[in-house]
Each structure stands twice: as C-alpha cells, then as structure tokens.
C-alpha cells in the first residue's frame, strides 16, 4: 500500500508583535520560542523525542541574528536525526514548501515522524524599511522595482481589474475583512480580534488603492510546529488525526506578470494545482467543507475561492457579503481569521493555515468549529499566485 502522511500534532504562539527592537534591554530570542513549541507539538502528538527523524524548517527572516537556525536548534535540543534537516525558502510559499517537504520525508521512507516548523520575526522593522527588501522579491528588480512596485501593489491591481470586470465594490471586498475579523474574534492565535464593520473597513486610510489598511495584512511575528507521521504511526496513537489526501503544484511560467496578455485574475496556477490535488484525493470542489488560503488581501481570498471552484467566477465577493463563506455558511473560508486578522508572519503563515485545518478536522476548534468538518483545502503561493501549492486534508477519527 502506498505510504500516506498524517498530521498528528501542532503548536503555535499567538501571532502578534513579539520581535524586540535592537536596543531593547531584554530581547525575545527565537530559539527559546521554537524549542518550547517543538516540545508542545511533540506532547500534543503523543510521541517522544527519539521518534523525530526529520525536521524541515522555514527560513528565518534576515533580522533573526542566530544564523543556521535549524542546526543550532538541533544542538539546543540535542536532537539527532537520520532523515533530513534543512531550511527551505520560497518567499510566500516558504511554509507550504516546508510542510510539503516534511511530507516527502515520510513518503520517501526517510522518516516515520517529521516536523515542519519555523519562526518569522519582523515586526520591529518598520514597514517602509521591510518593503526595501520585499519590493525586490516581486517582479523584475531592474524593470519593475525601479517604478516603485511593492508586493501588495500587484494584489491591488487584481482588485482594480476584478471590480472593473465584475462590478464588485469596495463594500464587497470589505465583507471579506469583516467576516475574517469575526472568525479571528473566536481564535486565540489571532492577532486582531475586535469585530469590525464594513464602514470601518472602507474608511481606513488607503495603502494601495483601492485597498485600505483593513484590506491588507498587518505586520506580525509568529512561530509554529507541526508533527507529521506515517499513517501507520498515526493510527497506532489511537487519537484523531488528519490525513494528507491530495497535493497539487503548478507554476504558470511567469514571474509576477505575464508579458503575453492573459486573464491575470484567473489565477491559473491555483486552478491547475487544485485540480491535481482534488483528483489525487478523489474529490471535487463541492465536497470541500472548509478552506484556509494563503490570501494576503481581501481580493486574493475572493480570487482563490473562484480559482478553486468554491465560488463561481465573479461571485466570490458576493459570497462573503451573503455569508456563504462565513462560519455556518455553505463553505466557510479562513475560519482562523485569515491573513488580514489572524495575521501574516509570511514565512510561517501557511503553517498556521495547516494548524487551523488540523484543529477543525480533529474537532477541537471550539467556538469556530465547522460542524462535521471532514475535508479541508489549504493553499500556498508565490508572486501574484504565479505558483500555487495546494493540499487536501481529511479528518480521520
């Protein structure tokens, strides 16, 4: 029988402003947080230290002073491993790749238990200064960055085009932020938990027109750890676990912008990757019970929900306004609060998405529990969804 991978344990710190300024007398040290989370996740899984055979870390931000963070942490925790130990990087896709690579360790037989983990600290660096780095990550650093593009400016142009083609309004986009803030109000890991209204979203200062402050992700820090295991190990533990049922990846062969005019807001990579993941899982879009997207802005959640077939083209914005994507609705999306309210420490964001699905599919999401949740879908991406990495997860009792 083909090997299958299960999520058996999770841990995370609430997303927020944890990073200390360089001149603070008492500093927050990344490895102290990370080692605690490893122990918490291992306890949650019900396994032991000696069972861990591979650790796949997300690359820390350049602001993290300790370099070679992954092998340093193994030294801190006296963890010896026979599988693989590495840091992976894929810009926005970083944490999705760490999860995917940890799955591979099990699928390849290199490990029976593997951790996908990481920490992202950046909030003590100002947004304008952080953007000096992030502006070089999107588009051509000579031909685009020279014009002043920033990562979210591309999503803003998605929004302008979507509103033009489908008649969507800022109120429609704002409904996504309001819905996600409501979800975040029920999530102890979320950065912003005070409910907001559509009027409040629309009246925020512009960041990248037409998107305002509440349409875009906040700055924040986070750290998380997932314990993955072969299904055999998962079953032996006698507790609910979450099975990785399908996986799809697609890169559309363009970086940020396609010089052959295409339907930029069709998110072709998400269409293709989700089709592969659904096929592998033997499911179709309407079978999915809930979704956690890598969707940094309100518009992105709308476009991904359409690309994955969860909402009709041009209907994703209305779905939030009509409550279809809210808890209790037809297809709850971003029950964690999403990137705009749960928070977006970018290099570990997808780890939080898998944790939300794991909590939901293990029936322990508390006040945000989706009733009878069986199938969830998570997305990771880079660029303007030029590439997508998508997993379908299933609850196993």
């Amino acid at each position: 029988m083909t090997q299958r991978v299960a999520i058996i344990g999770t841990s995370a710190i609430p997303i927020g402003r944890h990073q200390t300024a360089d001149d603070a007398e008492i500093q927050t040290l990344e490895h102290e947080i990370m080692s605690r989370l490893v122990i918490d996740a291992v306890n949650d899984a019900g396994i032991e230290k000696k069972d861990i055979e591979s650790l796949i870390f997300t690359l820390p931000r350049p602001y993290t002073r300790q370099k070679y963070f992954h092998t340093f942490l193994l030294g801190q925790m006296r963890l010896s491993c026979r599988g693989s130990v590495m840091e992976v990087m894929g810009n926005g896709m970083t944490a999705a790749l760490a999860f995917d690579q940890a799955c591979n360790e099990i699928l390849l037989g290199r490990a029976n238990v593997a951790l996908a983990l990481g920490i992202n600290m950046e909030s003590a660096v100002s947004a304008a200064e952080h953007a000096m780095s992030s502006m070089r990550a999107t588009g051509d650093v000579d031909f685009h960055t020279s014009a002043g593009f920033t990562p979210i400016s591309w999503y803003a142009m998605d929004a302008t085009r979507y509103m033009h083609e489908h008649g969507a309004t800022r109120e429609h986009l704002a409904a996504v932020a309001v819905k996600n803030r409501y979800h975040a109000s029920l999530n102890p890991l979320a950065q912003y938990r005070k409910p907001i209204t559509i009027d409040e979203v629309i009246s925020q200062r512009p960041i990248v027109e037409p998107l305002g402050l509440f349409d875009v992700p906040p700055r924040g820090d986070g750290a998380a750890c997932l314990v993955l295991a072969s299904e055999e190990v998962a079953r032996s533990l006698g507790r609910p676990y979450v099975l990785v049922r399908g996986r799809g990846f697609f890169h559309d062969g363009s970086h940020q912008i396609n010089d052959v005019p295409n339907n930029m807001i069709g998110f072709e990579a998400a269409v293709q990757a989700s089709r592969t993941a659904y096929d592998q899982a033997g499911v179709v879009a309407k079978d999915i019970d809930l979704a956690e997207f890598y969707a940094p802005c309100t518009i992105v959640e709308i476009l991904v929900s359409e690309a994955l077939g969860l909402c009709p083209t041009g209907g994703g914005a209305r779905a939030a306004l009509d409550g279809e994507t809210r808890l209790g609705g037809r297809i709850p999306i971003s029950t964690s609060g999403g990137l705009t309210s749960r928070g977006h420490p970018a290099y570990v964001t997808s780890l939080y998405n898998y944790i939300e699905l794991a909590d939901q599919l293990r029936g322990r999401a508390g006040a945000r529990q989706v009733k009878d949740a069986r199938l969830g879908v998570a997305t990771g991406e880079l660029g303007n969804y030029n590439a997508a990495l998508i997993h379908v997860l299933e609850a196993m009792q």
Partner: protein
Amino acid sequence: MTTFTTLPVIEIQRKRSYPPRHSSFTQGFWSGLTQGRWQTTSCQVCQKQTFPPKPFCPHCWSPRVEWAPLSARGVLYSWTRIYAAPTAFADESPYATGIIDLDSNIRLACRLVDVPGIDLKPDMPMEMVVLQFEDGPLFAARPVANA
C-alpha cells in the same frame, strides 16, 4: 532597416529613487530609452517579442534575437496608487503604477503619469513616455488626452 518607435520625453528634476542596473546587454535598452527609443527583443526564429528584453527568446530559447520597436500605444489593463511606499520611494508617494497591454500584444508594468482632468480607468487608451531623470531614464505610461 527597422523603423524606430520614438516616445515623448518628460524631464524630471531629480534622480531616480531606485535606479535599474545595466548589463552589457540591457544597456542597449536603457541608452536607447534616453533618446526616446522604445524597443525590445524579437526572435528571428519564432518572431515573438518579449518584455523586458532578453538575450534569448523565452518562447523557443533561440539565441537569435534582434532589437525591434514596441508599440507606443496600448490600453490600461489595471492600476493602483501606492500610498505605503518603501523608504526609497517615500517622498514620491502616493504614486500610480499600472499594467499596460500594448497594441503589439505585449503586457508590461510601469509607473503611470497623471494627466489633469483624466481619471485612471481600466481599458482606457494609454501612451508610453520616457521619464528623463537627472541620472537616467525610466519608461512610464499616461492616459491619451482627447482619446
């Protein structure tokens, strides 16, 4: 001999905020742009243009490329106005950027120049211009007046 597309040149009394690097290959584009010359590479095998210019054809991977004129006109596919700018661009913000579909079927992204009395709107006709800064050029687009 290929005819050239020449763009209007707008003088800007400052330096570029984040100047592009030049290679021995791309300097042909930037030095041409200083004179208003609007061009990219075109494949001599499959005839396709690409932008930004590349020393090979990204479609068929042939190294046989030549400089060829780009359209000076196109339509605005989408746009945004950036208020939260990186440090290097802080004193220019807010500024508009957009995506242009040129008449010659090339899509590109660039800075937009506002024209008084004309609101930016997707699908509106646009024309390319050169912004001639004190230290070199950038390409940009602006709405076509009286379109």
